[in-house]
């Protein structure tokens, strides 16, 4: 499914629509160039799952954890692989969260070939069209 958004708020709406369809245990893989709106997308996504936690870029911190307020989903794990070249998920202490039905993982810059332990994966591709316009492909 391809969407065109004309503002950060519209990008967050697409993220909220995706969040509404989740059952828990999913892994969202976010790809897109610098400035395409990945953090904006995550902000809309986390807010839609009932979290009041501030969503900041985990580029340096690698992982942020937000508490959700949702019937099935209790926490959201926000990952960023931007600075990580060769990584195994165990190095990040993810064992604790992978495969849990009360957790969703949303990962920026995920490298190909990571073992997400059988979790359902949803791929999001964002790109810059013009100053305000973004294309978002959900697959």
């Amino acid at each position: 499914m391809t969407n065109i958004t004309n503002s950060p708020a519209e990008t967050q709406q697409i993220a909220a629509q995706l969040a509404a369809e989740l059952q828990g245990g999913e892994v969202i893989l976010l790809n897109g160039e610098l400035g395409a709106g990945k953090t904006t997308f995550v902000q809309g996504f986390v807010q839609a799952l009932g979290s009041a936690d501030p969503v900041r870029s985990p580029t340096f911190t690698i992982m942020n954890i937000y508490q959700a307020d949702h019937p099935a989903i209790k926490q959201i794990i926000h990952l960023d692989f931007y600075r990580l070249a060769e990584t195994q998920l165990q190095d990040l202490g993810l064992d604790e969260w992978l495969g849990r039905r009360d957790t969703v993982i949303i990962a920026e810059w995920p490298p190909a070939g990571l073992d997400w332990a059988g979790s359902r994966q949803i791929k999001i591709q964002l790109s810059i069209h013009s100053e305000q316009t973004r294309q978002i492909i959900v697959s």
Partner: protein
Amino acid sequence: MNILGLETSCDETAVALLQVQGDNFVLPINLVSSQINLHQKYGGVVPEVAARAHVETIFPLLQESGLAADGSGVDVIAVTGGPGLLPALRIGLETAKALAFAWHKPLVAVNHLEGHIYSPWLSAIKPSFPALALIVSGGHTEIVLVKDHLNYQIVGATRDDAAGEAFDKVAKLLGLGYPGGPAIAQQAQLGDPASIPFPRPMSDSGDFDFSFSGLKTAVAVYLKQHPEAPVADVAASFQQAAVDILVQKTLAAVKKFQPQALILGGGVSANLHLRKTLGESLTARHPAITYHVPNLEFTGDNAAMIAAAGYFHAQAKRFVNPVTLIASPNLRLK
């Protein structure tokens, strides 16, 4: 009092021994892994970011430090308890716990941001309270009101990217390599800071929060529209926008909270343009408020600042139990 400091919350593995006598802070030991070619000396590859790196580095660093194997000469052990990546934090924490347990030494847990706030105590002139601190690094952008020792209130923070992250990502967009902070600063010297009117996000928001994601995006979009733009001009204009917004918000907080001292800390405090502009703006408007910037060696992550903050924890007898202490990846300053 002699404080052994350990820091492993992010990329750096660091060990320091701080001797405090009155107002005199001396560092007989101050080692940071990236400053020593450990993997050449001890063999093996040290990956850039992974708990593995801390595991492989912390004992060689302790050995390199020349610290007595029985812990003599250490009165207190101070370790970063958070925030940070859990597997990375654990390495420093478990090492500190084991040493405290084996040596029968008291242990204190320090917040990483607290370390940056205390980095000016490693210099001769110490800040007075209340103090206001701007902490800017790859992972943090916070304005903190420090009412007294160990008494913090966060009054402003980034809502998306940290300032240092924006420097790194703009450097990437400009093809300048990593780490981006020094690369941008170097290019900026050759460019015209007024050539491109990048936005100053949230300058009218009326609070002390920041948004650096919007500034980064403005640079990304500008480069798409102007692929031939001179790199030096883009770097200079971006740096000016970032420094302007940091200085503007910090001085607005100074005006509101009327501190005795202003502290600048964190990796981005190595940026000379920021150090100079913030200091000059403070002196022009509030000449009575003192300005404290750490020496360049204490701007990035280090264990000396953890030991300095740890000293004040020990003074306040805020010791922790080595048996029950656990890492806190989301630790907040309060």
